[in-house]
């Protein structure tokens, strides 16, 4: 069954959209990432104009993260204080990212920047996470504890910088400076790549600040919810590229998928959780690398740069 999308201006199969958004929603609920980095390229692959894909996925991510936020909030695994710091930094980063985005577009190198960033970011982060997850698994097999426990009184130097704050939920007492910097970087990357940034935020909070995984996922979803709500409104205001009908079907599949993902996450142990997330991120990076390194069968591409309405 096909339905015509009024803003994307093409018909699309309802079953395919529901299937795609359901699968991405499952992954989103499982890992506490927005899933935008998977859904946006998939929609573009289905011929949906990139601007419409990015803007509509923002709405879908807002919806599916709401479900997650409510679930983690009820389980008391959400740190609003940490979330607030992340949102504040994220807004600053987003503004810088949008400025950079427009500069690159003027220089005509936007596409290269996006592809290169996807490749480097995803392969490096995915590779590091994979290495770490495998090392932890070897440790378990050798009968040692999965990771070196954080001992009282010892912490990485960046936590000891000035402006220390206590985040009770996250069991964290650390300087705000590195947290805000992290949020700025993620806001920047998110604006340039059109992704929420959860896939960077989650591992960064786990590795650099040793915050419990459940709280990290809940808080990351909260940060994603706030930024994606803002992004949807901004996209609707500035380039009218949010497709409401597409959003409804993405939401329908996404929220249901996210529910099952959230349930599955509880039956998954921490080590395999990290291994799977690492493999997922790494494979997206490799997919973009293939595009960059393999000779294209069709060297030309056509874009409609200016609409007359």
């Amino acid at each position, binding site marked *: 069954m*096909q339905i015509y999308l009024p803003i994307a201006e093409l018909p699309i199969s309802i079953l395919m959209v529901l299937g795609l958004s359901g699968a991405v929603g499952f992954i989103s609920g499982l890992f506490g990432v927005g899933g935008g980095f998977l859904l946006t390229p998939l929609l573009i692959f289905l011929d949906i104009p990139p601007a419409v894909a990015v803007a509509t996925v923002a709405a*879908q991510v807002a919806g599916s993260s709401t479900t997650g*936020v*409510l679930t983690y909030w009820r389980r008391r695994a959400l740190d609003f204080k940490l979330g607030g710091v992340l949102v504040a930094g994220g807004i600053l980063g987003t503004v810088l990212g949008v400025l950079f985005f427009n500069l690159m577009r003027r220089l005509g190198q936007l596409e*290269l920047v996006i592809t290169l960033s996807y490749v480097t970011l995803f392969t490096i982060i995915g590779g590091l996470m994979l290495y770490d997850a495998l090392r932890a698994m070897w440790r378990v097999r050798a009968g040692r504890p999965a990771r070196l426990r954080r001992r009282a009184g010892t912490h990485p130097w960046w936590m000891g910088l000035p402006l220390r704050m206590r985040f009770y939920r996250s069991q964290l007492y650390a300087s705000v400076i590195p947290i805000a910097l992290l949020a700025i970087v993620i806001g920047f990357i998110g604006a340039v790549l059109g992704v929420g940034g959860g896939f960077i935020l989650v591992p960064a909070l786990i590795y650099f600040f040793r915050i419990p995984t459940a709280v990290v996922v809940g808080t990351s979803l909260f940060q994603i919810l706030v930024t994606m709500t803002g992004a949807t409104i901004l996209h609707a*205001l500035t380039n*009218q590229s949010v497709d409401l009908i597409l959003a409804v079907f993405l939401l329908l599949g996404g929220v249901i998928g*996210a529910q099952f993902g959230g349930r599955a996450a509880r039956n998954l142990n921490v080590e395999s959780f990290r291994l799977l997330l690492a493999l997922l991120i790494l494979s997206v990076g490799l997919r973009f690398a293939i595009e960059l390194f393999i000779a294209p069968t069709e060297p*030309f591409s*056509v874009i409609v740069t200016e609409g007359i309405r």
Partner: protein
Amino acid sequence: MRRSLAILLLATLAVLTAASARAETLIAAMSSHQIQINSNYTGDQLTVFGLVERDGRSAARGDPYDIIVTVRGPRRMLLVREKERLGPIWINRTQRRFPDNSIFLAVASNRPLNEIMSEETARRERIGLENAQRLPDPGLDFGRTTARFKDGMIRLLEEKGLYSQEARGVTFLSNTLFSAPIPVPATAPTGSYEIDIVLYAGGVPLARQSTNFEVVKSGIEQRLASGAYEHSLLYGLATVALALFFGWLSSVVFRKD
């Protein structure tokens, strides 16, 4: 119904224009002048009907009639890029802009274009996918590179079904009456479309006629699209409200623990 109505219209037009001074006149009618996009729209098809009116006093021609129908869709600025090798990676390096370029183009004729006219005539008369576009500014360099980009663009748009050339797209129902179906794919843009119909005999244009149709959104599609433009903030807020509602609803529906 539509078809018989169009033929009736043709007959009326034929009577009205019979007194024209030229030897051949072309009369054309469309099965419809509007394509409406609703929520189950997956493309549509229009038919152009035409009649060649001959002045009884002029001598009969030796050459058969040929009809070429060219449909030009709304114009946009197109950017064509080419990937080139830079060290180990492939990136878009060169690009060409095609301003004011139709993104829908359909050329239909009753037999292959090269049998109807020479390549030079086709260029001059703007017949065929390569020639149908408005010519670029004389000041612009229209070298071999640009031609390569243009070929690439035509190939890509043909793959998307937006450009088409049908060598048997026009059917003569009698010696003078013809019809040409014009398929409009679902991805064809909204806006106005111009149809040029030219009558040839022996490679010489005898008469031409033009008509038009438009592709518009209707019903909910139209309301949503205009809402997105005219009430952007409201539209954005409504989308967000819907998203949050869906998220909340699902957490309530699935809440078991």
